[in-house]
């Protein structure tokens, strides 16, 4: 443990307070900044060329084939204009082609922009406005409403302007020219919920992905014998472990078909049949597996590691997982999209016994964590005092795409004076052993099924619906899914429309504008929303309903 002397920053503008704080650092991983994520694939193909790289739907490709296919696609992409600084849309269902395209785009030096194929076209459009891609790669061609792109590469095609991946493998020679990406090049942009109603693009550097992959391989001892499930969608940072750590180890990637996620018993069969050794997902996915997958019916003895992140792991579920998979080590990984994984905690026997919440642990290699006081009047934060978690390290984003104001608000000068640190918005405390504990959010952000959701984004979308007077979105605790989203709405009084019809049309409206994980699960129509004395929406009253029922009676 090292002690640093630094200063907090007031509003991101000026240093105001000298203070000391302990930061954990374990300098063992040195990431070469000039290395690209494509170099991981070259090395894997050198060392493990004949071993399986991706196995999906009864098809397997070796590392040698993955390298060859990516280079051929990279040649076609380069010709279409993919180059450092350019954006390429990446809209795939789980598939071998998705992995080929991801590495091909990396080879061109361009930035891939994951677009979940299930998202409504309105979200594609909002993202395209921020990250103006002109090349599309995906399972299918883009929806026509998205407008023209200069080149389309898809797995399946229904028109002649789209080139299929299969045809490219036949006609293209592998790309051989050298492309030197800039030192801090952006490998991808992950769009997450934005409180103002517009999704925000978190820029992820190649350096971040390389550091995370290397840390993952070393920490969990991954080898070329391992088989890593890929459960999380590509727009979710969890998937970067399943892909880049696997390639860094020369291990086999085993994508989980989307539909299988809904069928826990089938999923457990699949995990057993494919001999998966390493699993990384949100806790709610594990909850479904444990509650509905009948794990005792399946031979899961090959499972060595269960890693989870994205939301709080409930202790009863943790115990169930430990009991069902006694051969597996369990680890809690923590980090918002902006930092990828930045702290972690290996589950101990004591964790399984006590009832306290699972810690988020200690920083990963080369990463520093501080707890700064939430109120600028307070002094520094002592052991067991609460503060906002601040993170600096190689996995931290350089900022949001085209949003300097938000970047300046969230990335502040690091307390040790060395570069920038990301303000997580998470309230934490550090215990006597230096272990971090997550206590809650400073703002209204909701975590549901691992997705982070800004209630303000849902509210902003719903407010544009005709006839809506007020909207407020809150979380409702759910045993399996962590949280469910509840929308409380009121309508204009003079519109003579049936309440039920209004509600259903409002839900349709939401579906056309929001990804399905942001469409509220529960809806309530109120005559008018309860307000505090200062006129703000009274969120507490919305979740209980009690204060206003009383007021109505008087």
């Amino acid at each position, binding site marked *: 443990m090292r002690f640093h002397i630094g200063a907090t920053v007031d509003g991101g503008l000026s240093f105001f307070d000298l203070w000391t704080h302990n930061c954990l650092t374990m300098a063992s991983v040195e990431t070469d900044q000039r290395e690209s994520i494509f170099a991981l694939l070259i090395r894997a193909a050198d060392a493990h060329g004949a071993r399986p790289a991706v196995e999906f739907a009864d098809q397997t490709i070796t590392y040698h084939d993955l390298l060859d296919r990516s280079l051929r696609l990279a040649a076609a992409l380069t010709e279409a204009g993919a180059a450092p600084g350019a954006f390429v849309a990446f809209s795939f269902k789980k598939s071998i082609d998705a992995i080929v395209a991801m590495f091909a785009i990396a080879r061109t030096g361009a930035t891939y922009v994951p677009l979940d194929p299930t998202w409504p076209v309105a979200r594609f459009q909002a993202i395209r406005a921020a990250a103006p891609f002109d090349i599309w790669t995906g399972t299918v061609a883009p929806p026509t409403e998205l407008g023209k792109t200069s080149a389309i590469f898809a797995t399946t095609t229904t028109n002649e302007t789209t080139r299929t991946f299969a045809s490219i493998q036949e006609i293209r020679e592998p790309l051989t020219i050298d492309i030197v990406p800039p030192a801090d090049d952006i490998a991808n942009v992950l769009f997450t919920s934005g409180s103002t109603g517009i999704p925000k693009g978190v820029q992820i550097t190649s350096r971040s992905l390389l550091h995370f992959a290397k840390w993952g391989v070393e920490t969990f001892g991954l080898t070329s014998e391992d088989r890593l499930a890929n459960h999380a969608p590509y727009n979710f940072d969890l998937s970067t472990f399943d892909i880049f750590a696997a390639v860094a180890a020369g291990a086999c990637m085993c994508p989980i078909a989307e*539909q299988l*996620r*809904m*069928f*826990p*018993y*089938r999923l457990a069969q699949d995990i057993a049949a494919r001999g998966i050794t390493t699993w990384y997902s949100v806790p709610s*996915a594990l909850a*479904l597996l444990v509650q*509905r*997958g*009948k794990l005792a*019916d399946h031979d899961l003895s090959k499972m060595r590691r269960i890693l989870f992140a994205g939301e709080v792991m409930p202790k009863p579920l943790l115990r169930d997982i430990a009991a069902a998979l006694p051969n597996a080590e369990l680890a809690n990984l923590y980090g918002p999209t902006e930092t990828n994984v930045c702290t972690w905690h290996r589950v101990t026997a004591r964790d399984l016994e006590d009832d306290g919440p699972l810690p988020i642990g200690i920083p990963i290699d080369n990463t520093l964590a501080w707890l700064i006081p939430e109120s600028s009047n307070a002094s520094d934060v002592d052991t067991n005092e609460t503060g906002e978690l601040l993170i600096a390290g190689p996995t931290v984003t350089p900022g949001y795409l085209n949003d300097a104001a938000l970047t300046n608000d969230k990335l502040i000068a690091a307390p040790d004076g060395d570069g920038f640190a990301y303000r997580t918005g998470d309230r934490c405390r550090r215990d006597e052993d230096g272990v971090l504990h997550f206590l809650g959010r400073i703002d209204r952000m909701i975590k549901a*099924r691992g997705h982070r959701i800004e209630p303000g984004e849902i509210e902003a979308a719903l407010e544009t619906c005709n006839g809506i007077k007020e909207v407020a979105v809150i979380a409702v605790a759910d045993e*399996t*899914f962590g949280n*469910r989203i509840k929308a*409380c709405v009121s309508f204009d009084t003079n519109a003579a429309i049936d*309440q*039920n*019809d209004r*509600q*259903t*049309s409002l*839900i*349709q409206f939401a*579906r056309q504008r929001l990804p*399905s994980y942001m*469409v509220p*699960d529960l*809806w*309530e*129509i*109120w*005559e008018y929303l*309860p307000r505090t004395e200062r006129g703000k929406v009274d969120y507490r009253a919305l979740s209980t*309903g009690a204060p*206003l*029922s009383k*007021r*109505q009676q008087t």
Partner: protein
Amino acid sequence: MRPIWAAPSDFIMSDREQLRDYVFGELLPLSNANRPADDASLFDHGLDSLRLMQLLVFVEEKMRITLPDHEVTPERVETIDSIVGWIESHR
């Protein structure tokens, strides 16, 4: 003050009616005019893992049918028709 809208209370309905009512009234809300036929794929109307689990809980708790986990397959839950058939096989 309470929410002025709430799900309709249960009364005697057939399995199919009860299921349609729940699926299109609450789980995947659609106005009467937009409700698809009983052989339409629910996956195309937003059935996902969370909603599927809610559906199973509804069938088990409200309709009092125990559905074995290993029988939860895409073929059985894809349409209202297939779910009704599945429920009937356990009546």
